[in-house]
């Protein structure tokens, strides 16, 4: 097929006289000089500057092994299947995060009943290989290593309908903010005592010894201590007859 012939239109340069040209040049020089002294750009000179992000920023995840109760909730909830529970020498299972899969939704952080997973504001870590992107439990305990070049924190502010940059000469705090961990208070309770087969698996799995079992006159009595129960849900998961449930405190 022959290509269609289109008419080319040449745009003429505007016909300016000498005065207009000189005026234009002077205008440009003045603007450039003004911007050099009082710049009003809103772009950030990353990585020398860094934007101040809110406390609930979903960055890379840090892990507190002392708080983890090995309940697997993080790996269950992960929509990207990025969390692997790996066996540790102490017989428990702790999470590892595959950052090739992680979508930074922080469902794991939100779901953790003990707040063992922590948010950081770090989002810019470079990896040299795919293997490196798999963060083992040990690597998760320390905040991820990164090269910092920044010395300024940038805050945006709206002033008279205009976006204004505010520069603060300090090094941004990127580490964890455990105080923003809010998980709803839950309590384990027996919803269907007539389903219970008295297997004591709840008592055996409870990490905080909140469930006590007594045998009196041919009857096995179970009792949950609300003071000790942390609402981790391990007993609910273990119960073979779906007897237990988590209730709001």
């Amino acid at each position, binding site marked *: 097929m022959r290509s269609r012939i289109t008419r080319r239109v040449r745009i003429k340069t505007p016909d300016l006289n000498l005065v207009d040209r000189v005026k234009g040049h002077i205008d440009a020089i003045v603007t450039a000089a003004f911007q050099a002294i009082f710049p009003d750009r809103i772009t950030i000179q990353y990585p020398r500057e860094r934007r101040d992000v809110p406390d609930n920023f979903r960055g890379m995840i840090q892990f507190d092994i002392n708080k983890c109760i090995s309940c697997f909730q993080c790996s269950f909830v992960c929509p990207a299947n990025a969390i692997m529970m790996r066996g540790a020498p102490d017989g428990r299972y702790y999470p590892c995060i595959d950052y090739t899969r992680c979508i930074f939704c922080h469902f794991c952080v939100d779901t953790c009943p003990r707040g063992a997973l922590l948010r950081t504001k770090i989002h810019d870590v470079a990896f040299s290989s795919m293997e490196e992107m798999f963060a083992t439990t040990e690597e998760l305990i320390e905040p991820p290593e990164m090269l910092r070049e920044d010395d300024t924190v940038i805050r945006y502010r709206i002033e008279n309908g205009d976006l204004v940059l505010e520069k603060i000469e300090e090094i941004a705090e990127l580490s964890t903010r455990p105080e923003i961990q809010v998980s709803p208070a839950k309590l384990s*309770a*027996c*919803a*269907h*005592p*007539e*389903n*219970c*087969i*008295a*297997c*004591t*698996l709840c008592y*055996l799995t409870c990490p905080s010894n909140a469930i006590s079992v007594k*045998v009196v006159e*041919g*009857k*096995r*009595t*179970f*009792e*949950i201590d*609300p003071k000790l129960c942390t609402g981790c849900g391990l007993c609910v998961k273990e119960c*073979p*007859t*779906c007897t237990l*449930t988590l*209730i*709001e405190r």
Partner: protein
Amino acid sequence: MAEACYLCWEVELPERRKKGMKYFGILKEFVIDSGICSHCTTCANICPVRGITAGDKPIDFPNWIELCVDCGACIRVCPRWNYVPLKGMGDYIEILGAKSKRFRGQDGGLVTEIIASAMEMGEIDRAIFVGRDDEWKPVIIHVKSVEQLEGERIRGTKYSFADVIVELRDAVFHTEKGVGVIGTPCMVSGVRKLQKVVKRYSENVKLVVGLFCTENFYHHQLSEFLAEKGIDLTKAVKTDIKKGKFIVEFEDGSKTSFSVKEFDEIIPSGCKVCQDFSGVESDVSVGSVGTPDGYSTVMVRTEIAKKIMDYIRKKDYVEFTEPKPAVVEKLVKYKVKIHPYPPEKKE
């Protein structure tokens, strides 16, 4: 929450016949080792640590001394614990002879028909069937749709123990409407006992179909026995027991048969003390005895089964024939006679 929740509750424990022994040990001594275990696998179903194993060998719990959590659930659900044999025809609303127009089965295809109709009615959303592999080894199939019931291997009697009740646990905790179970009379008793102990089972097991049964076999013993007779089960298409004869039908249409009396040595000891032929505790019992070839006898015992039979009648899914309750009754009495309990002592 709408339902009441408890922070303190209690569960009655079964009597500990032997002091200082874990419950499974007691079950082992008084039921399994004393030879009255029927291999219904109800204990394996309830075991919270899933330690009790069934399959093609006697019920066991490897390493029970260490792993048993001593809950006593196995004893509470065991139909042979404090065993009082069930016998007779049991109560029934009606007795029918029928043949399915939709499904082919061992005889009239009525078990398949009842389950399919119950699924269509929405009474149940899943059922547990026993299929088989090439060597006639039973394989459990979770049936979730009527289409699945048209499979070649799902139909027909296998005459081998299958872990139906073990699989029931997963079905009961995953069902939305209800579960249908098909089993020999001992399995039916097991399910009924489970329903007494765990409420979830009484809520979710909606339909229990009992099969007429004199005895069942361990698959390895049955296939070895038949191999000795020169029968290659891989080529068989149907096994049947009719008028005291064990019949194997092959792909090419030929048949071999011999007397069931020859089986005596491989009959499991648990079957030798069982007197329940018709599955008296079931919702509906089905078997070939009492009707002509190609028809099944159906004993409708409960309201739910009646409802399903009425639906089948309305939809005109089956052809009816006149059953002979007297013939069933004869076999019911015969089973009591050949399986005395307590067993007669041999000199």
